[in-house]
């Protein structure tokens, strides 16, 4: 029995002339994600992308991976039948026998995009339903809430038999909306922010600030682990680690204590902007949420924005912590994020950070720093690793 995966393109069908480019990007992303599952042939027809295995492989794993690829609204693992109604009936009974023998109720749904095929959809439902009732006499038909829905799709190439569709990851193909640099601290919020922007079709690089010896090597390993968790959704991520201790030490020594965090955030934004620009990114992404901490008040955000030379996207800006945590659990970054290793944001934290900083005061407070040298050193010393 031949099986494949049918992938439905959601929002993409709304695209106009560039729809083909979106579908091509989607197939490229999907193909890459299945690379080590097995050899697959990808093709598209009628708003559907087909992933057909060319060798014996783990289709469950393929479905699991494809369900995390942005751009697909739904997917189904299906049996391929020749376009002959008797053959379809036999194959339906055989392919779905495990679920049908365990279920009490079922229904049949038919979609006939090949209008030359007979019988028509209502007859397919009626006749196939009758056939399955004979094969599985314990079953009853329930058209409203069946335990199993047998779906038959009559398409150009062949007929496909499957159960209910499973939801896809939604969104747009990663890479189609450009690239952005995610500031990845190691906390709960930033991986979620990265996931959300990747869902809108952005490919990501990540920038992490490490502050040894004030932060540990484990904090860096944790950030790598987070990238690994994100990559089934976000695709390949190039992670830049910036050595940040020198900057933090100088801020601590030379600037007023209450401005420490805001000045540090401004340096992060500036460094990330430069790394982003060098890597052809059009924006920065942060996991900031209004008023969550002192550096995330409106006035503080205005001061950090002023240091960024690219737009700063903050997808979790209006979310409660609980809402962010729900997504973090869904994408499985939560347990890694809460590992108790200090990140650089916890180094030298002032007792009373400025919550209403004004830009001209901040600029004055940071004026003692040899700005250009510090930025140059930090960018020069950054190391990168590709994950995923």
């Amino acid at each position: 029995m031949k099986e494949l995966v049918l992938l439905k393109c959601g929002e993409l069908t709304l695209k106009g002339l560039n729809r083909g480019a979106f579908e091509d990007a989607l197939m490229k992303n999907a193909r890459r994600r299945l690379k080590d599952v097995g050899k697959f042939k990808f093709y598209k027809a009628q708003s559907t992308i087909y992933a057909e295995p060319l060798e014996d492989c783990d289709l469950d794993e393929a479905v699991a991976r494809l369900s995390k690829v942005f751009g697909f609204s739904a997917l189904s693992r299906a049996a391929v039948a020749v376009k002959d109604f008797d053959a379809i009936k036999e194959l339906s009974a055989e392919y779905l026998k495990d679920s049908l023998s365990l279920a009490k109720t079922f229904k049949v749904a038919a979609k006939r995009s090949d209008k030359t095929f007979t019988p028509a959809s209502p007859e397919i439902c009626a006749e196939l339903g009758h056939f399955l009732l004979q094969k599985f006499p314990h079953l009853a038909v329930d058209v409203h809430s069946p335990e199993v829905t047998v779906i038959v799709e009559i398409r150009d190439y062949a007929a496909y038999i499957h159960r209910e569709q499973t939801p896809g990851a939604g969104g747009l193909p990663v890479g189609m909306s450009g690239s952005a640099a995610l500031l990845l601290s190691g906390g709960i919020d930033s991986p979620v922010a990265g996931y959300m922007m990747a869902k809108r079709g952005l490919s990501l690089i990540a920038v992490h600030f490490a502050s040894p010896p004030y932060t540990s090597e484990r904090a860096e390993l944790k950030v790598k682990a987070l990238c690994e968790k994100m990559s089934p959704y976000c695709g390949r991520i190039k992670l830049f680690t910036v050595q940040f201790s020198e900057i933090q030490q100088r801020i601590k020594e030379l600037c007023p204590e209450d401005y420490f965090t805001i000045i540090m955030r401004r340096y992060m934004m500036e460094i990330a902007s430069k790394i982003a620009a060098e890597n052809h990114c059009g924006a920065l992404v942060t996991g900031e949420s209004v008023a969550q901490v002192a550096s995330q008040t409106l006035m503080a955000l205005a001061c950090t924005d002023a240091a960024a030379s690219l737009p700063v996207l903050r997808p979790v800006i209006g979310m409660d912590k609980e809402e962010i945590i729900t997504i973090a659990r869904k994408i499985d970054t939560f347990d890694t994020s809460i590992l108790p290793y200090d990140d650089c944001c916890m180094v030298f934290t002032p007792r009373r950070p400025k919550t209403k900083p004004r830009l001209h005061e901040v600029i004055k407070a940071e004026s003692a720093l040899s700005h250009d040298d510090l930025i140059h050193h930090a960018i020069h010393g950054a190391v990168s690793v590709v994950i995923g």
Partner: protein
Amino acid sequence: MREIYLDNCATTRVDKDAAELAAYVMQTVYGNPSSLHKKGIEAEAILTEARRRIAIALGCAPDNVYFTSGGTESNNLAIFGAASANKRTGNTIITTAWEHSSALNPVRELESRGFVVKAVSPEPSGHIDIDKLAALTDGDTVLVSCMMVNSELGSVADIERLVKLVKLRNSKTLVHCDAVQGFGKLSFSAERLGVDMLSVSGHKTYAPKGVGALYMKKTARVAPLFFGGGQEKLIRPGTEALPLIAAFGLAAEAARNNFSANLAHLTALFKHFVKNVALTENLCMNSPPDSTPYICNASLLGFRSETVLHYLAAKGIYVSSGSACGKGKPSYMLKAAGVSRARIDSALRISFSKHNTIDDVDAFFLALSQAQKEIVV
């Protein structure tokens, strides 16, 4: 970069001949000691020899040695096993506030199951007042559990005196000693101590991780935690981890044979360390002067221990910190000992092995003085 490992209370490097013996057993004497055929008999001989070696090191008969997976299991077996087998004797457990978590948490669990738990805190001197601990014993006391050497400070408890005092008050009370940090480092005999149960672990004394033992007196009634085959006289069923057990036996024998030489060497290191502490600005000892020479706990005041730990690690010097990290909790052991928060947050535990040298200690202090100059606080 030269590696200077000063975290030997966390774990030690396995002795070369012990590691080789483990590999030999894995590859050659791979039979199951319970098998009836020749391979089984060969394997059983290895097991018997290892048990004999551990027994000599513990100062007891081989029959009193039960192999486990390590210190945590030995402590769990002793505490849960004794409490559940002797419920009729009483309902009270006595212990100290700074036991290792593998002894403290089983006791807490028993408390949640209805046992009454009484715990004494250490004195400001950094010691457990044994008389005070023993005085808590009454007719209802089923178990007294006390560690021999505190794993963070190195303080030594007089277990022999504890047993005598406890048994005077209630002869039925069982006494358990967690000797994980004392085994191979202090001279003791389980029989002479008089304890009913005593836990040891392999990897703290140059044997592999994953093996330990529980000494049990014949008269001590202990219920097993696991049920299965007949190994370890039904107390600890499961196919014996023979390669690890064999290595443990050899490492324990070596520790015993070289005990005096090792102790003299470690005492010299400890003295050198203490002398340097006095010469180093902002550094103060937390360990009591009479602690085991294997452990030195000191605080570099004003410097967070994790920062210093990472700084030293970057120079190839490995120590451990008094508290976990900013997000973690401060050391409950030091807290119980009444050490101030400032000292806990800056505490470093330096723990030696027979491999360390005076040069290692000097390198540590040199790096520590550089840390004071370079780390911004």
